[in-house]
């Protein structure tokens, strides 16, 4: 399902125009982004948790060349599905 399909389905279910749906989606993402940048996590029952996690810096080795690289720490948006959703998986 690509973005277009997603938007049409969302607009159909919420009975909103495609334009406003796309706008609202971007606003929602913007709101969540503000939350994540503050360090908050977005937890939704039946879906899961979207939160920002800090990955520590590490030394990675290129296996072919043997060159060691110091990979800097970074903040990554992670998603952990809820147990309800997990149960639906095979």
């Amino acid at each position, binding site marked *: 399902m690509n973005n277009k399909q997603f938007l049409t389905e969302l607009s159909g279910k919420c009975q909103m125009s495609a334009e406003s749906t796309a706008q609202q989606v971007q606003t929602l993402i913007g*709101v969540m982004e503000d939350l994540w*940048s503050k360090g908050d996590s977005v937890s939704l029952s039946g879906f899961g948790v979207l939160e*920002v996690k800090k990955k520590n*810096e590490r030394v990675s080795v290129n296996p072919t060349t043997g*060159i060691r*690289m110091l990979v*800097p*720490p970074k903040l*990554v948006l992670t998603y952990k599905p809820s147990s309800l959703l997990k149960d639906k998986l095979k």
Partner: protein
Amino acid sequence: MNNKINLSQLAEMLAQVGGMSKTASEQFVKTFFDIISQGVLSEGLVKVKGLGTFKLLQMEDRESINVNTGERFTIEGHQKISFTPDAELKERINKPFSAFETVVISEEQAEQLGDDIETSYSEDPTADDVEPKVEPQVKDVTQKRITRVFLKFIVWILSIILLLGIAGYLFWPVIGSQVMDILNLKRFEKADVTVTTRQNPVVTVKDIESENRVAEEPVKPVEEAVQQPEATVQTVAPESEPAVKPEPAVKENVKQTKENVQFVALTKEDQAKSLASFTEADTVNYKVTGLLAVHTVQEGETLTKLALKYYGTKKLWPYLALYNDMKSINNMNTGCEIKIPKLAAK
């Protein structure tokens, strides 16, 4: 910070920003995530622009080992949902750490850091963290370096002592005879003096010649002393008479024989005696060519004094002992006659 925002809170915020009613926005948010989860389950892939991609992954069976019991067991294949954030979103979220870049570690640094940089790192990601972790190892390295330097130092000292010992052993005949001269030979009571004085110098000179590159310092004076007479011989030989003039006693000898050169050399030696320190190397550079004089020993005279008198240097006393077949220096009594040999440079 670190708050868990649930559906209603998120909907409230969206309502404030997006200009929708609270219920509508709540509905909107709910549908938003429902579609994602359903889409993932039904289609296996949902792409939301500005957020990212949700993907359903099929994991294969794999074998694992229970860490505690060591038993093998299979982890059965299952599905899992992966989420890859949108590149732009990813960048924006990582903004606080965007200044950091991947750095290639040189081999030296890698050795110093060791492996624990990967395993033991505290929460704070800044580079300051690297240093305290590294410090103990750096200390170790410096300690090792210090001990290495210390060991080298000890080895150096030991080798220097050893060298000094060897040098002392080799040059003992040279140094020793000087010491004996200073002691006026009173304690020199060995019966076979002539033998030792005759043989040892030969050995030492050979040794000196072969090793003069090894131990330069002690040899230099020897070489100078050895070369000096020869040098003067060469320079003085053509005009020996003017050079001899200041020494009337020697003058006669000069006229008599062809060995005038030798005596000029000796007198020169005599003049230089106070300056140059002679070694026993001199004593092996001459050979006996005839009888110079017969001397009746006076009270208090020694072989060295005679050598000094006749040759200008007391170093040549062994020739006197050798020439007179003296078994011991103590045999020289007042009134006995000592034959003084003529000496010529070899």
